[in-house]
């Protein structure tokens, strides 16, 4: 116990020696005074008493050192002294270390955050047990279509030994009655065992019991629980109306569980044995020793036996979630991750460069310490401590930055982007540790170099370095210049990439959509196939629905349309020399009011009239240009299968999505000859549109039509812009960081270089060089670095621009304006960074310099 206590006391004293130091000083002073009193009493003079007391007590400094060593731990004590000394040094010349800390923090923060995001979204396996054996199984038709399976097939697969588990889910939109009105959310009917298969647990309440299939119970998501029920726990056990059916809430799933879709808000149980059980997506866990191909073959055989309609189909697997990555995400994320690597490299180069610029000054200082008797080990330890202190500062800042960036990503990245992976976006510890170690290693090495060089036994170059008042040695200068060139190159490449993405985003956001999406809602309907069978009956239901929609508050106009399909290679011009249109053409049947409601721009001609026959057609501008390349399209004929259509108008194509903004949009419109089974009612609202819940609750078309989907076009466009916006802002931020790092690096390096070359500039001035000629020396050095850097940068930038080709819109990868702007920005920034060092050089006063030297 006494030993432990003593160890603790020693550690305490090593950490904070202040009180004990004061105490021992007071004690020794008192002791000396008492000894002096004693000697005076013995008849000694004051001077003799002082001398004898000092001799009797012993050397004060020795006693203090002995005392310190006894009460503390020597190594720790020395370390504390080193840290204090290093801290004082850093505070005395804070500029370079502060810059190095800032750069290092940015490098550590950016790389950790980007790895966390990329790993969380794309690399990490799903957070489910045996994720490698989980899959969704579909039936694929010979033409490539993908079909869900019937409940009977799911039951039969369960009986097969190829799978450990087979569960099913079927999603769809629903309206939930809440205290604040109807709420439209997506839910899923799932087999009760699905949660167990995924290893999912509720945060409150319970899941479905195995025998609960088909019971009126519902499990809700944490998000719905908070948004609709104010996070009230008493909701458990209460009945809530989902699509007019009372369901008892039995459990709440955690916010991280989004299955089967990112926007699933509730789950109800489905009974596989019910005669009316819908087709569903099958989720399977393969048996451990069954190869995937065998499992799929067994699944197909079983399906063929149970469901004859699948006879011509084969079984195929997909990931259970996150299998769909759109073009933008597939390409933008690796490019942005690559950009992070470039920024990290630029920043690391900068840290090393900044520390190297101080190399010579530090070498002189260390050489002087060696001359005064300091041991090599002591100096190296001091250098390591100093480097570690800078590294630690950078690392702490980096951790804070990484945490902030990951929180920002979680808050601002598009929701489906994050939630499709099901992995929570938490700071990745492996990446953090790796970045921290790399950062510490780099700074310690950079700080160690001068101490190592200065304390070499063969100190010839040392002596030269400490005596000479000239510039760095050739090797040092080359290293610093190479690092600066690297930074200029990386900045150039990043700036070009960022500029292309920003301009593409501006182009996409300013894109002419061909209509006004503000206040437009497209309501897609499904008419009951058993009760509404004739065109007349559907027309009656459609007319009733239009009335209902127009009666809702805020709705001003409404028009019916329906897709008449996408036509491949079957639409021809009446000009014999023009080949059939090879790209798909979207054919839409519309009412005469369609273009008025959409506020579409009719380029020429007119919209449909009530008296137009089925052979009238309106074509989009691009289709018209393809069909009649050099001729007036109005009044000409289109040959579609064995029909001939007469063009009455040309319209600017309505652009439905911005994601593939550069995709060719070919549109052909024909008069609506009846709503069909899946018509679309487009409503234009005034100031505010009714919510999706209000549409779903308020409209039933006499219970003969169900609302399948409600698309608010303005919101959809805003969502489409999220990814280009996120990419452009991230790329612009990275480029700005790299540019700032380059500017600071160059400034620091040139400022040091000017400082080192003061004598040379003084001599030049004394020999008659004008200030502008001396400034020219500095500018020339910067210009050479910039020139070489730009040459390298444009090569890297060319690769970046080529890889961006498919995700940029309305701008060429090698757009001369963009490239010139980037080169101009870089040159201007570098000129600004060079200005002050050049001015300092130009102002060198030879007389002052000679006095200093003397």
């Amino acid at each position, binding site marked *: 116990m*006494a*030993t432990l*206590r*003593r160890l603790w*006391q*020693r550690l305490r004293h090593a950490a904070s020696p202040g009180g004990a130091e004061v*105490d*021992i000083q*007071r*004690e*020794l002073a*008192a*002791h000396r*005074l*008492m*000894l002096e*009193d*004693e000697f005076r009493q013995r008849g000694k003079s004051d001077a003799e008493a002082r001398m004898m007391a000092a001799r*009797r*007590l*012993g*050397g*004060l400094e*020795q*006693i203090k050192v*002995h*005392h310190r*060593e*006894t*009460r503390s731990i020597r190594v720790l004590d020395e370390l504390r002294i080193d840290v204090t000394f290093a801290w004082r040094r850093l505070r005395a010349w804070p500029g370079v270390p502060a810059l190095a800390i800032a750069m290092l923090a940015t490098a550590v923060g950016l790389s950790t955050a980007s790895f966390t995001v990329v790993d969380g979204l794309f690399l990490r396996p799903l957070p489910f047990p045996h994720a490698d054996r989980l899959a969704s199984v579909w039936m694929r038709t010979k033409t490539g279509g993908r079909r869900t399976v019937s409940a009977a097939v799911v039951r039969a697969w369960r009986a097969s030994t190829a799978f450990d588990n087979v569960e099913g889910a079927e999603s769809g939109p629903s309206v939930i009655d809440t205290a604040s009105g109807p709420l439209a959310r997506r839910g899923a009917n799932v087999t009760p065992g699905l949660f167990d298969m995924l290893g999912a647990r509720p945060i409150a309440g319970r899941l479905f019991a195995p025998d609960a299939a088909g019971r009126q119970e519902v499990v809700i998501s944490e998000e719905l629980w908070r948004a609709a029920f104010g996070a009230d726990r008493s909701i458990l056990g209460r009945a809530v109306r989902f699509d007019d059916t009372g369901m008892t809430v039995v459990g709440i799933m955690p916010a991280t569980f989004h299955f089967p879709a990112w926007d699933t808000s509730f789950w109800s149980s489905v009974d596989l044995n019910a005669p009316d059980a819908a087709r569903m997506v099958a989720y399977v866990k393969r048996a451990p020793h069954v190869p995937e191909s065998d499992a799929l073959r067994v699944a197909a055989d079983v399906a063929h036996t149970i469901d004859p309609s699948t006879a011509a189909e084969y079984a195929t697997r997909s990931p259970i979630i996150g299998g769909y990555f759109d073009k933008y995400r597939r390409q933008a994320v690796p490019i942005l991750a690559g950009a992070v690597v470039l920024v990290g490299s630029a920043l690391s180069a900068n840290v090393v460069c900044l520390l190297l610029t101080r190399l010579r000054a530090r070498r002189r200082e260390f050489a002087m310490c060696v001359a005064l008797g300091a041991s090599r080990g002591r100096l190296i330890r001091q250098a390591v401590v100093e480097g570690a202190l800078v590294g630690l500062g950078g690392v702490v800042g980096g951790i804070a930055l990484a945490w902030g960036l990951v929180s920002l990503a979680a808050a601002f990245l598009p929701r489906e982007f994050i939630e499709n992976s099901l992995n929570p976006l938490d700071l990745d510890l492996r990446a953090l540790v790796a970045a921290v170690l790399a950062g510490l290693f780099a700074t310690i090495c950079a700080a160690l170099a001068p101490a190592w060089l200065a304390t070499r036994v063969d100190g010839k170059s040392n002596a030269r370095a400490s005596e000479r008042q000239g510039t760095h040695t050739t090797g040092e200068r080359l290293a610093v210049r190479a690092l600066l060139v690297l930074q200029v190159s990386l900045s150039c490449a990043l700036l070009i990439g960022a500029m292309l993405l920003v301009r593409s985003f501006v182009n996409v956001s300013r894109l002419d959509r061909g209509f006004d999406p503000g206040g437009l809602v497209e309501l897609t309907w499904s008419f009951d196939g058993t009760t509404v069978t004739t065109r007349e009956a559907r027309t009656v239901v459609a007319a009733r629905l239009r009335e209902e929609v127009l009666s809702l508050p805020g709705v001003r106009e409404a028009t019916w349309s329906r897709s008449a399909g996408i036509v491949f290679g079957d639409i021809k011009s009446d000009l014999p020399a023009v080949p059939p249109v090879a790209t798909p053409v979207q054919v839409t049947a519309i009412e005469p009011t369609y273009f008025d409601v959409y506020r579409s721009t009719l380029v020429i001609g007119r919209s449909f009239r009530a008296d137009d026959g089925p052979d009238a057609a309106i074509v989009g501008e691009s289709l018209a240009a393809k069909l009649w390349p050099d001729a007036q399209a109005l009044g000409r004929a289109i040959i579609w299968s064995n029909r001939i259509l007469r063009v009455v108008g040309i319209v600017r194509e309505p652009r439905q999505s911005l994601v593939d903004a550069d995709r060719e949009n070919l549109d052909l419109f024909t008069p609506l000859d009846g709503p069909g089974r899946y018509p679309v009612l487009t409503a234009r609202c005034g100031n505010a549109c009714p919510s999706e819940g209000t549409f779903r609750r308020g409209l039933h078309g006499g219970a003969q039509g169900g609302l399948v989907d409600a698309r608010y076009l303005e919101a959809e466009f805003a969502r489409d812009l999220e990814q280009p916006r996120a990419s452009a802002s991230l790329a612009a931020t990275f480029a700005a960081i790299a540019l700032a790092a380059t500017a600071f690096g160059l400034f620091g390096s040139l400022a040091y270089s000017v400082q080192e070359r003061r004598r040379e500039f003084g001599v030049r001035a004394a020999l008659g060089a004008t200030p502008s000629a001396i400034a020219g020396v500095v500018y020339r050095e910067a210009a050479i670095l910039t020139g070489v850097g730009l040459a390298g940068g444009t090569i890297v930038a060319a690769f970046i621009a080529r890889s961006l080709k498919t995700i940029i819109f309305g701008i060429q990868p090698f757009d001369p304006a963009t490239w010139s702007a980037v080169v101009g920005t870089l040159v201007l920034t570098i000129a600004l960074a060079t200005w002050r060092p050049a001015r300092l050089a130009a102002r060198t006063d030879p007389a002052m310099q000679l006095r200093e030297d003397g």
Partner: protein
Amino acid sequence: MPSKTRHKVELLQGALDLIVLQALASMGPLHAYGLASRLEQVADHPLSLNQGTLYPALVRLEQKGWIKGEWRTTENNREAKYYATTKSGTKAIAEQSERWYRLAGLVDKLFLREG
């Protein structure tokens, strides 16, 4: 000089701690000067130590919790740090003296046999 040091006693490692502890236990609270004076007083031979060497021993004992220091005013109106044994210090004296006697006995025996 050599004739003077011939009679001085070199202290064995660890012995000083026990001596200081015992002195404080028998004399009550003392400051370092008082302690040094007391040790010189009781020694038949002058001790081979500067008075400053007491301080590390005092720190060791204090860190083990066997003694405790407190600033007070002396009779001559000077500030001094007085050290006194604690309860665990009193207990430790018994254990440490036992160890000392065993060690001294062993050394004694060896010398007798050798002699």
